[in-house]
């Protein structure tokens, strides 16, 4: 007989799920930060006219964007054990750990996407702006720092917001390599109680709230990025994010 939803089970599972939620948020934030640290220099280098610089980076992003994140995670978590030298090295305690493997795999994955987002944005910075900066006597470095990157940041922001949401949702794959993120905790509770509905729907609602909270936060920041244009009515009309 269908008994409806067992709210008591949901209620008693909340503290345990909250622990998993912390891991999920932690994994997301660390992955995002690691991704930015890797992708910023590599994204700039990706636009280099030198083939010897841009080609290896292209190969890296091509591999990581063309294969599933799950396979990348397995490649690191299960795969590295194949190498005896690695197993004997001081790095092994880290590379054996599911949490660290997730961080490494997720970071390499998001960095690949972010590199292409950054490179695409840099290529779309209006040439006239860069020429103006050079005409003012700015060096290549100063132009990059003061003109190209700030403009590229505004161009890439919507695409990067999507990437952050993607990372947040992908952290659920951590549960596949014994990490107790929110999905991992949920699967353990379900194995114990055999009530998949209550628990999975609960975490689905939490993911939903996390996703839209993140979206809201990033939209706020995007609005902030256009603050210098806000007093001009015509400029406001030209920028979709302000309308």
């Amino acid at each position, binding site marked *: *007989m*269908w008994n409806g939803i067992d709210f008591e089970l949901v209620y008693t599972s909340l503290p345990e799920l909250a622990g998993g939620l912390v891991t999920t948020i932690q994994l997301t934030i660390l992955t995002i930060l690691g991704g930015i640290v890797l992708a910023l220099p590599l994204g700039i280098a990706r636009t280099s006219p030198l083939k010897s610089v841009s080609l290896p980076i292209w190969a890296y992003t*091509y*591999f990581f964007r*063309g*294969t*599933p*994140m*799950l*396979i*990348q995670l*397995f*490649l690191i978590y*299960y*795969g*590295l*054990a*194949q*190498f005896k030298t690695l197993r004997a090295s001081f790095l092994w305690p880290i590379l054996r750990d599911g949490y660290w493997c997730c961080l490494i795999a997720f970071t390499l994955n998001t960095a690949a996407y972010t590199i292409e987002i950054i490179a695409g944005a840099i290529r779309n910075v209006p040439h006239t702006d860069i020429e103006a900066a050079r005409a003012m006597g700015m060096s290549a470095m100063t132009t990059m720092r003061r003109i190209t990157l700030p403009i590229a940041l505004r161009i890439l922001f919507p695409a990067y917001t999507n990437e952050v949401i993607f990372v947040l*949702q*992908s952290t*659920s*794959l951590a*549960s*596949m390599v014994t990490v107790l993120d929110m*999905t991992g905790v*949920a*699967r353990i509770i*379900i194995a114990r109680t*055999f*009530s*998949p*509905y209550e628990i*999975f*729907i609960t*975490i*689905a609602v939490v*993911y*939903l709230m996390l*996703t*839209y909270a993140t979206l809201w936060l990033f939209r706020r920041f995007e609005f902030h990025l256009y603050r210098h244009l806000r007093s001009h009515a015509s400029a406001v009309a030209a920028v979709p994010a302000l309308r």
Partner: protein
Amino acid sequence: MMALPQFFDLQGYGHLLMEGAAITVGVGIAAMAVSLVLGMLGALARLSERRWLRRTGAVYTTVVRGVPELVLMLIVYYGGTVLLQKLLSLSGGDIRVDIDAFLAGTIVLGFVYGAYATEIFRGAFLAIPQGQIDAGQAYAMSPGQIFFRIKLPQAWRLAIPGLGNLWLTLLKATSITSVIGLTELARQSDLIKSPTHKPFTTFFLASLLYLAMTALSDLLRLRAERWASAGFRRS
């Protein structure tokens, strides 16, 4: 250091990877078909004049895009099993239910990517100039004729770049059907990593197979885009 041929030798388990790849493509194509149908229906709902249809469409895309695919997969598979079991036990007897993994994978992926396809088709329909629809009405075309002769052919063309991206994402997402036991490429490689004692080689070869699929898809996408924009001048 191992020699390369020895490194890549999977001791006779290699054909299992190929079999897995075939199932990956199969579930991918089936799910894509489901998502195209759902996406078209979703876009029509979101652009409908009836409020409840618009609402339903919006709830569909909002919820599905806000929850990880893995969680949706687990909900449908385990939740569906329990629900079916309870429904069937109403008719008496203790019946064990096993949902077919291929079917479940197709439904979940189709359902998830249908939400993304909804947004792509919606954007495509909105991008058709109003003037053409007015012109159709001026020729006394019925709403159905306007839809099939003016809107639909162009919406396809406008949707193709987005759908190409969708297919690439979906193809990679098929790997999560491994959690419900579908022996596609990811699951096959997971299964043979131990008997071969070569987990890295196994997953690396699997990733090369995925790469071949995405590269081929990318090529087809470029051709499709060129085909769809034939007769259209890009000024």
